[in-house]
């Protein structure tokens, strides 16, 4: 049975490191890795379906056409996932991937709040706002 009290910290001769609770940082690191592995797995599933159906089509990326709306908006991606399209599932995995660092920043707000560091709560919220503006405000959410 684990001890009721937290294990004694190693005494440090210097002033404590920024971000005193390294546990939060380790949790965040693992969160990032999990997010990446989940999105890689989703992309891989999409890749199998895509390759199974289109393996022998010609590959041509010489001319930029821009993706159709089903691959560049949330609703479009969800619809193409529902209809079982490989490219849609790949795109869903990529959306997870982009969301992973955003989630990390969101959790960092909590971490700094626990430390009662108002200055860095404000900084982190600003970064989060920029990320959300880019992610949601760029037209993906249409």
């Amino acid at each position, binding site marked *: 049975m684990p001890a009721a009290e937290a294990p004694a910290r190693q005494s440090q001769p210097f002033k404590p490191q920024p971000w005193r609770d390294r546990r939060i940082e380790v949790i965040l690191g693992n969160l990032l890795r999990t997010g990446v592995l989940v999105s890689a797995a989703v992309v891989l599933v999409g890749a199998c379906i*895509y390759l199974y159906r289109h393996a022998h089509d010609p590959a041509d990326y010489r001319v930029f056409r821009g993706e159709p709306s089903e691959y560049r908006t949330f609703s479009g991606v969800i619809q193409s996932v529902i209809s079982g399209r490989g490219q849609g599932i790949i795109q869903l995995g990529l959306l997870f991937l982009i969301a992973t660092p955003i989630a990390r920043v969101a959790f960092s707000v909590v971490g700094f709040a626990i430390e009662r560091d108002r200055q860095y709560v404000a900084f982190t919220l600003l970064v989060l706002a920029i990320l959300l503006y880019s992610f949601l405000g760029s037209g993906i959410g249409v």
Partner: protein
Amino acid sequence: MTILEFTVVVAIVSFVAGLLGSLTGLGGGVVLVPLLTIFFHVDIRYAIGASLVSVIATSSGAAAAYVKEGFSNIRIGMFLEIATTFGALLGAFLATRIPTSALAIIFGAVLLYSAYVSRKARTLAERSLPPDPLATRLRLNGSFPDLEGRRTYNVQRVPTGFSLMFGAGALSGLLGIGSGAVKVLAMDQAMRIPFKVSTTTSNFMIGVTAAASAGVYLSRGYVDPGLSMPVMLGVLAGSLLGSRILVKAETKSLRLVFSVVILVLGLQMLYNGFWGKI
């Protein structure tokens, strides 16, 4: 080429780029865009979209390992991310408006600069710099594990570093790369952050910076699933393998080879840009 052949070949190339990028610390994204555009004749906008996605994957995938080592400084990272994310938004905005030949020329210049930085000897941060008032106010100074216990460091020239990071973010958003070379300039040279601290801190900043422009790229239709899939999976697998064998590998000669590759690709990009081939 059929889609199957294309996917397999691009995945292998991306794997090698991710492996070399991780072993040399120069990042894989910087060679991917020129390789895709020059050898696979991919439109540079699709190449940038795919590369950006792979940059998020490698940065986030390596974060867990770096955190455990105890070098990264989350306050430096978060503070500078204000600059890099703003820059990335600007870069992504510009990328949709400037001609592709100009993109190729800027890319070529960044490659040449990266090759130069990778050959230059690193300046060792002096041990006992006096604390800078602004850095102290922002609580940027820190310490990291050293042979003789923990070593403290004092961050210098915050405004210069912050401005350079804005530029690094803009290049990242414009070209879909991690822009490690500019980060080295900002964090090592200007701010005098110790090497290990700046590399590990900039690693997790790269993912957040790329995420700031990825939304714009995706919504503009630059992220093609068929192309991004082999690039992302290949680079991720290569860089994860690279971070495992990093300890044993002889990286000095690898760095030399890789920086020559970067140099050649940079010249090729400039040539293609100036002659309107991209």
